């Protein structure tokens, strides 16, 4: 019986649900509090919450395994894309998105393009992408709990799912924000504690890395992948900060533009410390002390058990759960808001009261969460492909109409609609029906979406003068 691990995990779960019940008092009758935490979140809280939303199970377990197998250069090129994407979002969209006082990404399309087809397609793309992402995260949580707690996979997935569905559904954005701060601090601390211990044991950063690359040269070299694979890995995540709803919604929660921009940049600094020092220490030490590891994703957990006291191992379980939950809760709220705010309120019941909307939000969180749980019981084999495809699909369809919609006066509704269609179809076609190198599909789909947007916008009716005037105000 792994008493310490169980006790610490239980305490962590109780803390998350407790925060959910506390937050419920604030959000029970206000859509603003439920979806965007009343737009009262400050820089410190939002920085940690953003970092936690970005850093999923992949940023604690997967990244170490990826570096162990594919080498440090490839891993850093993928994660640097995510890191550089936040300053990009800070420069391109943060000011305007925050000042528009939106609830969802679809709200931006509604304001800028006023087109019913777009208003229906965008939330559908968001629900599909976020749903796929949630299933991948649930599977990661289940595998971790099986490894660390020794409980059956289906039990582990169910417990994890029920915990975050409960606190998201009852506590909305307030619960997510506060739990994300707790989860962010927990996961960063665990990775950095292990990294420091490893650096100390091996005589510092460069001696450890040099020793590892001497033992296994592939760890440090640029592999024989095409340069397009490196560029594709970078670009997919570079664009995510501007369009992925679970990240963009954090911009909506901030108390002002300065807070939004500062927190986008501070969150990446925290993330950089965790990823860079974590990868350098853990993947390097792995090649020295565990050169023939069968399942690279367990590297972090194996080294924790070798180098840190057992009580810390208990915190490691909670830290991995935290990494998974902090992303999944934000994904769940993004998907729930797409159904409730973008489809139910705008298409089905426009006169719904705030209390009704909050209740529908709670109900849709349960439906999406339980559906994802059903898929997670028997996850598709190509889950990693689907999850990466989900982020690539968001970039290929939404990046061009969002960014040009903010910065280009001649952007039109028809341009946006056809750009979304061409970007989405070309991306899916290239992904499923061609043999292009992994992660390179966006490099073809994005330019196609861009050209379509510009050409169609130039030959179709301009946006209303009212929209252009509001845009002018936003840029003053």
């Amino acid at each position, binding site marked *: 019986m792994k008493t310490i691990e169980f006790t610490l995990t239980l305490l962590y779960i109780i803390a998350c649900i407790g925060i959910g019940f506390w937050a419920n008092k604030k959000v029970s009758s206000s859509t603003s509090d439920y979806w965007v935490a009343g737009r009262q979140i400050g820089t410190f809280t939002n920085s940690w919450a953003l970092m936690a939303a970005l850093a999923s199970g992949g940023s604690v377990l997967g990244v170490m395994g990826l570096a162990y197998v594919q080498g440090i250069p490839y891993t850093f090129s993928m994660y*640097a894309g995510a890191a550089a994407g936040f300053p990009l979002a800070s420069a391109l969209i943060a000011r305007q998105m925050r000042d528009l006082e939106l609830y969802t990404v679809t709200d931006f399309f509604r304001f800028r393009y006023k087109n019913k087809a777009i208003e229906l397609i965008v939330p559908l793309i968001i629900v599909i992408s976020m749903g796929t992402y949630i299933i991948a995260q649930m599977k990661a949580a289940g595998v971790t709990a099986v490894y660390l707690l020794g409980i059956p996979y289906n039990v582990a997935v169910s417990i994890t799912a029920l915990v975050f569905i409960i606190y998201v559904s009852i506590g909305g954005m307030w619960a997510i924000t506060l739990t994300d701060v707790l989860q962010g601090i927990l996961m960063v601390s665990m990775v950095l504690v292990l990294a420091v211990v490893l650096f100390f044991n091996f005589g510092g950063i460069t001696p450890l890395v040099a020793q590892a690359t001497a033992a296994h040269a592939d760890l440090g070299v640029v592999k024989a992948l095409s340069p397009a694979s490196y560029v594709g890995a970078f670009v997919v995540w570079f664009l995510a900060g501007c369009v992925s709803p679970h990240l963009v919604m954090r911009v909506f929660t901030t108390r002002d533009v300065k807070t939004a921009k500062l927190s986008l940049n501070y969150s990446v600094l925290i993330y950089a410390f965790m990823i860079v020092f974590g990868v350098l220490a853990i993947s390097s030490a792995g090649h020295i002390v565990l050169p023939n590891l069968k399942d690279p994703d367990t590297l972090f957990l194996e080294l924790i058990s070798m180098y840190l006291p057992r009580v810390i191992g208990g915190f490691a379980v909670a830290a991995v759960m935290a990494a998974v939950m902090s992303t999944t809760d934000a994904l769940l709220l993004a998907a729930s808001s797409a159904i409730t705010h973008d489809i139910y309120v705008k298409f089905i019941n426009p006169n719904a009261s705030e209390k009704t909307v909050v209740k529908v939000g709670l109900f849709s969180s349960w439906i999406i969460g339980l559906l994802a749980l059903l898929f997670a019981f028997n996850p598709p084999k190509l889950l990693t492909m689907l999850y990466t495809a989900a982020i690539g699909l968001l970039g290929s369809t939404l990046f061009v109409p969002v960014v040009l919609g903010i910065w*280009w006066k001649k952007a039109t509704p028809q341009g946006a609609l056809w750009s979304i269609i061409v970007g989405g179809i070309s991306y899916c076609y290239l992904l499923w029906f061609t043999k292009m190198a992994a992660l390179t599909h966006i490099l073809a789909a994005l330019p196609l979406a861009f050209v379509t947007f510009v050409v169609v916008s130039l030959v179709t009716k301009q946006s209303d003068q009212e929209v252009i005037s509001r845009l002018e105000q936003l840029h003053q």
Partner: protein
Amino acid sequence: MSNNKSLYTMPKGDLYTLICLLLYTIITFVSLSTKATFSGVAVFGWLMGLFMFAAPIFGLVCMKFDEYDQQQNKTSNISK
């Protein structure tokens, strides 16, 4: 900040952030062609690792630049 052009004018700080991100990205990907290493890790790998710190620092410094620029504009408007 709007004008008669079809693109809205970007605040200088945001524009400099974009330029820094773009330049750093190009330089880093050009280094893919070199086989030089440091402590056994390709220069490309180190540059990408450094990028994770450099990108937000570009963003923060350029934000400060914008604030300074706005203060200067206010001061010069008052003195006029």
